[in-house]
Each structure stands twice: as C-alpha cells, then as structure tokens.
C-alpha cells in the first residue's frame, strides 16, 4: 500500500489551513461592494399575511432594499420542489403543496421567510427588519404528525386533505398478516424516533453576486452538492440558466444532510443581488438555523414481529407515520420510504415484510435527510424490537440475532434490497469480545454493590450506501441519476489534479482521494490536488450524502485513472520500444517488466504534452474523465454494544463502555474512517440521551431553538470509543468499499436504549432518555 497509498492512515492535507485559521468558509468571503441581508420571518406557526408595511423600515439608516414575495413571484422565480416522486398505494401522486422562497399569502411554520432586508451592515439590516410591519391573521397550528391526520385539524395545503402527503406501502401485506396469525410468538411495540436538528457547527450562509455587465450570477453557499444546487436553481427556480450561474461551495463546516437541500435563502440572495445591484451576503445565526435548517427523523411507528417455535422470525409488519413539516424539502419523500422501508429486513432472513408509511404536513420546519436518513429509523425500530423479543422469549439477545442472521449472499430481501456481501456473525463476535460480554454479570453485581444499576445492550445494523444505481432510483421515483463524475488531469510536469463531483465538508477527500493516485502511480500525495465544490471547475457531480463519496465518487476516479494509466502505458511502451502489456507502474516510474528500462512518471507526462514523439494517431495530452454509475447499493453492517450505569437516585445515565465493530469493506484511510465512526456514534448517543426538537403543540413555537435549550452532546457526556473493523470487500465497486459516514449514527441509538432499559428493568422508555424519564421509568417498576 505504501506510506501514502490505500490502507494508510495518512495525516490530512487539508488540516493545516483549518488549524491556522486559513479555512475559507462562505461567511469568510468578502467582495467589493458587498452588503448584508437579514430575513423577516414569521413569528407564527400558521397565519395569513394580510399586509406588509415597509415604509418605516425603508427609511432606516443603511437600508439599500427590502423585497417581498409578491416581487419574487412577479419575477417568475419558481417554487421550491421535492425531487423524488412517491405514489400512494392507490396510484395517486404525492401531494406537493407550494413552497414559495418568500411567502406571499400564507406562512406555515415559525421562521418561514417573508421578506429580505439588504443594508450596509448586518446590524442595520437587522434593525430595519424589526421595523417591517407584517399584519398577520393567525390561524390554528398543528405540529404533531399523528394529530395532524385526525379530523378537524388545521389544514396546511389545499392539495393535501387531512394533511396527508402520501399513503405508501412496500412488501406483501397478506404474507406478513399470515405470518403474524400463525406465529408462536409476536412481539409488538410502539416506537417513536425523536425529531433532531442536524446542527453542523458552521451555520448556513450564502453570498449572491450578480454581474450586470456579464448578466452572470455567482453563488457562494454552504452546500454538500453545488452542482445539484445549480441544476435545481436553473431548471426549476428560474434563477438563471446554468451557463450564467456559478455555484461555489468552498470550505463547508459540516453538513450531516442539512446542507444537501436548496433553501429559500440562496435563491432569494441571488435574486436580491440583481434587484439591488449589490452583492448580498446572508449568514444564519444559530436560532435561525434551528428554525430553518431541515430537521431529521420524527417517526411514529407500530411494529409486529412474528416468531416460530424455534425463535426464527417469520414475519414483520410496520406502520409508520412520518412528519415532513410544512413543505416538502428536496429529498424528504425518499427518506421514510426507499431509505427506510427497504432496510426493514435488517441483518435477518425475514420471509414476509410489509411496511405502510403515511407522510404528513405539520406547522414545523421541513424534515429531510439527517445523517443516516431513514436507516437509523429502520435500525432503531428493528433492534429495539429484537431486544424486546429476546427478553420476552427468555433467550440471550445475541443468540436470537445469531439464529436469524442472513448467512448466504447474495441475499434478496422481500423489500427490494439485494445484499451483496457481509459477515454479521464476525462483527457480533468481535463486538462481544471487545465488550467482554461474558464478564458483564460480574460488573453488574459490582455496580449493584455501589448502588448503581448497570445494563448492557446491543444493536446489529445494516445500511444501504453508495447511493445509488441511477436506473434503480429512477424506477423508484428519483428525479436525478445518482452516478458520480471525475476528471484526472495530469500536468506536463507530472503533477495531478483530480476534479470530483463529490464534496468534502469534513470527510477529508483532499487526502483520501489523493491516496488513490499515490497508490496507483507511486507519486507523493503532495503532487496531487483534489478540486471540488465549484461548478466552473468541475463539470458535473451529484455531491456528498448517503456515504457515497468513497463507493461512488472514488470509483469514478478509479475509472478515469484506468484511462490515464492505459494512455500513459501506451506512450511509455512507444518511447521504450516495448510491448504495452509489459509496462508496469511502480514508485513513480513506468518500467518494462523484466528489463532495466524505465521512465519517470513526469517524463511520460511531458512526452504526452510536447507530443514530439507519440504513437501514431494518438492525441496529445494526458487528461481523462469518467462517469461511474454503481451497479448496486453497498451494505455496511456491524454490531454495537453499549454498557451503562444508571444512578437510581437521579436517573442519570453514564456510558461506561461503547464498542463498535463495523464492516465497511476495504478501507482507504483507517484514521479518517475511525473519525467518521466516532462522530456518528456521538450523534447517535445525542439522539438517545440528549437531543430532542420540541415544538409547543398549542402554538407551534420552537422551544428548543438555541444551545441553551437543545442539548448538544458535549465532551463530558461521552466516553472514548472502542472500535474494530471486519472487512468483507464490497463486490459491487472496483475498490471494494462500502461507506462509513453514517454507520455510527445508525447503530448507536438502539444499543444505548437497549442498555438503559436493561439497567432499569423497564422497556417503556422513549428517546431521549433524559434523567427525568429514566428516573420515572425506574420508579414505575419499583
């Protein structure tokens, strides 16, 4: 592998700029004449806009312009759309209500944008926004999905009767019902997957620049997928045609899904720049982020799992209601359907599965993909149910899982997915060994001697990454293909630039993608630049989400490298008068195998560009591009074990041990992969123990709108983690990699909740397991 090749824990190339304050995030950007935007937002969860009076605000110091939704509509700026079509089981299409970038008649959640104020300073823009008088006719609001479906509730969109967006199903209902009817045992649960705020540490920001001389727009934005942003803003929002719109996502401070979507602010700032004649920068404050960034999760489910007399699962039936908020965000419809129900087989051979999913409008901010996106919801539901079943059946949780593992591959589940490879037993064994599972009873007894309640819990997760085969997702309703592109440019001196459509917002692509080149050609990663995040530099790309950069983005680089290597070998063979098939590339040299003939890499590159002596008919240059469309999803899987101590006096939970055993297939940079798992686990622990978005159900006000109210995991809430890797290579892509970005957030919540409920002896506990809830659950059984 070499010191910088595949499999080496290479320190990151990008770190120096971040460590020295030289990172360039969107809010760090400044251009001549730039002014500041502040948005007037709805203070009500649901209201009619009767009038907007800007007269006083327009005279405030520093104000350059104030723009409202009617002007936006007059300029034919389009509605924000959801890009994944789902049909209800009756065949009708999902009911997409209009989402105006600036509301012009109705506001539907607290934070809905109503107008934009542009001023010389942020303070002046904020002052003027406070002076804009919006007269609202306040309407009743509904924030909870289950309630929103009931008769007589406030209606959000005329298209969606009873706020129902779609009523969708997957699998065989009759087969699942039959399995349950004939079962020796049925485990039933009600599962709530709590609503979360993604909270990348960099708040969203955008800088819209309109150049009237060129009739051209530039948009700096905090995006995980700048090309998709450009495509959607051109094709659907009518901001500008693609050739007149450049989107740049420079350094981006975390995303976790929330920066996939195209939000009102990017669109409005570009439009406002043209209207006001000045570059317009908007930066979200944290409360605004809580109010307007797409949230995650928020599922209510009932589940029935059927077992035969040998404790084999014979059927699974799931009914889920998912809250999608006030409007349908870009991928919102895919999350509780094709990213959720397709994973309900978990690691288990389940002959009959049926899932019914209803999605619902409520007066809350839109809900879309957040780290894991549907797969954490599926895993939490299954793994809480498996643990509960083990307790009911009186068997060990490990034994019940072992008995039901899928063991032969490929394995076709009843819910679309075809698992290509895996070894679930290996991860289970590794996790149990690392956690000293067998020593738990002694530790529990020791803790009891100190008056503490000790518990242990496991979860065996599977996810689908490498999103996604374009034809497959197209047939399921996706509005785009989910391939990736790459271009490898070898310079005349042999240094290399790689243009990728993947986007790094913390994942370390500048290092790991460069490792591919170091591995292939034996040149130092310092000689390789990874270029991403700019639609003027990279032709096209689908961006980074769903743990797809490695499996899809890197595979595109490999395809381009194959072409570069083939051409370089042709040139080298010609120059050394050898047969092309005898050329090998090692340590930065092209050699004729079995001889001492050799050419340095840079000399072959130079020959390609001088073109003085190329094989007959060969074009000059050494630059190749490729598009890679995966043939299947990838299926990372693993086993997590959590051990806790609950203080019965206070209900406080301490995580005393957290073990993760993951199978990500082949690994490019173990240090970076471990970092991804650490971060994912922390977010999963956050969900299970601390985090919860809470809207006041009466008036729709967001109660948890700052870090004083929303409990982000801090360093002293978490332990250090014990990780291990099992590596069954993925057969579906050339590198054999599966993806590691989301696993931690998927596998950890059920492990932790299984541990706490084990400790307190009461299974009736919802996330987040706050001390108050744990204390109450404990005292309910004592």
């Amino acid at each position, binding site marked *: 592998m070499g010191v910088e090749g595949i499999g080496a824990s290479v320190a990151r190339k990008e770190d120096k700029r971040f460590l*020295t304050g030289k990172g360039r995030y969107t809010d760090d950007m400044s251009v001549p004449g730039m002014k500041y935007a502040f948005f007037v937002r709805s203070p009500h969860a649901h209201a009619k806009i009767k009038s907007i009076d800007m007269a006083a605000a327009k005279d405030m110091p520093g104000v350059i312009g104030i723009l409202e939704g009617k002007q936006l509509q007059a300029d034919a700026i389009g509605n924000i759309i959801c890009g994944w079509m789902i049909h209800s089981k009756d065949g009708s299409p999902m009911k997409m209500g209009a989402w105006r970038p600036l509301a012009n008649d109705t506001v539907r959640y607290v934070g809905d944008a109503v107008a934009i104020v542009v001023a010389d300073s942020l303070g002046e823009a904020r002052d003027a926004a406070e002076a804009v008088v919006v007269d609202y006719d306040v309407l009743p609001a509904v924030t909870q999905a289950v309630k929103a479906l009931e008769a007589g509730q406030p209606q959000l969109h005329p298209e969606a009767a009873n706020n129902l967006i779609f009523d969708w199903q997957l699998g065989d209902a009759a087969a699942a019902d039959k399995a349950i009817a004939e079962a020796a045992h049925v485990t039933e649960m009600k599962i709530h997957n709590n609503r979360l705020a993604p909270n990348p540490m*960099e708040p969203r920001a955008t800088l819209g620049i309109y150049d009237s001389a060129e009739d051209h727009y530039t948009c700096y934005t905090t995006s995980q997928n700048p090309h998709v942003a450009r495509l959607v803003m051109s094709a659907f929002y009518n901001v500008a045609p693609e050739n007149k719109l450049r989107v740049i996502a420079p350094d981006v401070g*975390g995303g976790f899904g929330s920066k996939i979507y195209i939000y009102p602010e990017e669109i409005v700032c570009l439009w406002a720049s043209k209207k006001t004649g000045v570059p317009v920068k908007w930066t979200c404050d944290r409360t605004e982020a809580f109010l307007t960034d797409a949230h995650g999760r928020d599922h209510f489910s009932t589940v029935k799992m059927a077992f035969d007399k040998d404790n084999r699962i014979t059927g699974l039936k799931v009914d889920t209601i998912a809250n999608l908020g006030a409007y349908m965000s870009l991928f919102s419809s895919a999350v509780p359907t094709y990213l959720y129900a397709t994973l309900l087989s978990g690691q288990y051979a389940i002959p009959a599965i049926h899932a019914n999913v209803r999605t619902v409008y409520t007066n809350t901010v839109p809900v879309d993909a957040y780290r894991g996106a549907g797969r954490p919801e599926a895993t939490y539901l299954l793994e809480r149910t498996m643990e509960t079943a083990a307790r009911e059946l009186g068997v060990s949780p490990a034994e019940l899982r072992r008995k039901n593992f899928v063991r032969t591959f490929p394995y076709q589940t009843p819910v679309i997915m075809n698992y290509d490879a895996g070894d679930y037993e290996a991860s289970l064994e590794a996790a149990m060994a690392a956690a000293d599972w067998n020593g738990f009873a002694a530790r529990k007894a020791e803790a009891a001697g100190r008056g503490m309640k000790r518990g242990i819990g496991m979860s065996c997760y599977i996810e689908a990454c490498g999103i996604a085969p374009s034809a497959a997702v197209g047939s399921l309703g996706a509005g785009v293909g989910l391939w990736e592109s790459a271009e490898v440019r070898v310079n005349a001196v042999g240094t290399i630039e790689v243009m990728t459509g993947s986007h790094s917002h913390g994942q*370390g692509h500048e290092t790991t993608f460069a490792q591919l080149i170091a591995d292939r050609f034996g040149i130092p990663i310092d000689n390789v630049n990874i270029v991403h995040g700019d639609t003027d530099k990279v032709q096209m790309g689908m961006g980074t989400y769903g743990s797809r950069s490695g499996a899809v983005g890197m595979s595109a680089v490999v395809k381009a490298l194959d072409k570069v290597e083939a051409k370089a070998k042709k040139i080298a063979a010609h120059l050394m008068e050898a047969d092309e098939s005898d050329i090998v590339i090692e340590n930065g040299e092209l050699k004729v195998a079995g001889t001492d003939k050799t050419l340095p890499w840079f000399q072959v590159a130079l020959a390609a560009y001088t073109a003085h002596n190329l094989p007959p008919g060969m074009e000059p240059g050494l630059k190749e591009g490729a598009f890679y469309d995966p043939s299947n999803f990838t299926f990372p899987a693993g086993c997590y074990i959590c051990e806790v101590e609950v203080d019965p006096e206070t209900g406080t939970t301490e995580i005393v041990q957290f073990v993760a055993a993951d199978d990500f297939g082949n690994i490019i940079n173990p240090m970076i992969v471990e970092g991804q798992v650490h971060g994912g686990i922390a977010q999963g622990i956050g969900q299970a123990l601390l985090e919860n978005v809470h809207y006041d159900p009466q008036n729709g006000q967001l109660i948890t709108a700052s870090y004083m109210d929303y409990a982000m995991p801090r*360093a*002293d809430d978490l332990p*250090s983690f014990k990780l291990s890797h099992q590596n069954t290579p993925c057969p579906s892509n050339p590198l054999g990699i599966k993806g590691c970005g989301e696993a931690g957030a998927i596998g950890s919540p059920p492990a932790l909740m299984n541990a706490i409920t084990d400790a307190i002896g009461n299974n009736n506990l919802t996330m987040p397991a706050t001390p108050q809830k744990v204390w109450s659950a404990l005292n309910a059984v004592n």
Partner: protein
Amino acid sequence: MAKVKMTVNGRHVGAECEDRTLLVHFLRENLALTGTHVGCDTTQCGACVVHMDGRSVKSCTILAAQAAGSTILTIEGISNGGELHPVQAAFKANHGLQCGFCTPGMVMTAIDMIRRHGANLDEATVRAELDGNICRCTGYHNIVKSILAAAAEMGGVKQAAE
C-alpha cells in the same frame, strides 16, 4: 461609532466600529481575521475562543470596545512562521478535526487548558474543560486524544488515552 485600538497577534491595530460591535465581529469584519468563527448566539459553542491578555475568552461575549487596549491572540497568531504550534500539530497527528469549523476555538481553549493544568491534565479533566466548546464531527474522541498528546509534548507527563 467608536474608534477601538488593541494589539492583535503582536500588531497594534485600530478601527472604527459601531458601539455594539462584538470582539468576534471586529476581528472578522474590521481586521479580516476570519479564522475566529461564530457558531452560536448564546455563548455556548466556543468556536470564537481567543486569548485576551493571556486568558481564553469567548470573543462573541465581549464588545470590541471592552477589549480596547488589550492584547488579543487569535488562531492566526499562534504558529511560528511555517511551523505549527504543538497543539496544532497534535490535532493534525491525531485527526482532532474534521470540518475545521470548531477547530480554532478548540485549539485556543486547549492552549489555555494546558497552560493552566500542565502535567495534571487527564482525560476526565480535558472532557470537563471542553464543556464550553461544541464539536459536531469528531465525537470529541480525537480532540481529547490530541490535547492529551499536546500536553505530554509540551511538558505534561500524562500520556494520551489509548
């Protein structure tokens, strides 16, 4: 408007700003020192930590006018030419950062932590001391490891976890 003068990273600087300007905005907007970040509005996240007269402070919670006459050190001022400060080097070696947004605040907090605790720094202390700095990427595992490694490198005796 106020004319505010201070010493930042060894340079005497002065600029006109609105009276309400926070130190972090003065650094970012008036001095173009954009390494210090704003991650929240409530003094919780610590992305804005700088040193004021030798002690770590959250620059979002001090008016620029309050910092007049003081000596400020920011993330841009701690490395020696091309050479990283030992805390910066430890964060790089131990993968103590991912997206980099919280990193300047983490590094400035860590330097102050090591200055105060020196050889007494252990994992529990580091985790408790990081209560005012939020990271969403790393799960803190490698940040803790980085700070312990830096403390050892800078003269502490406790070794890093693992």
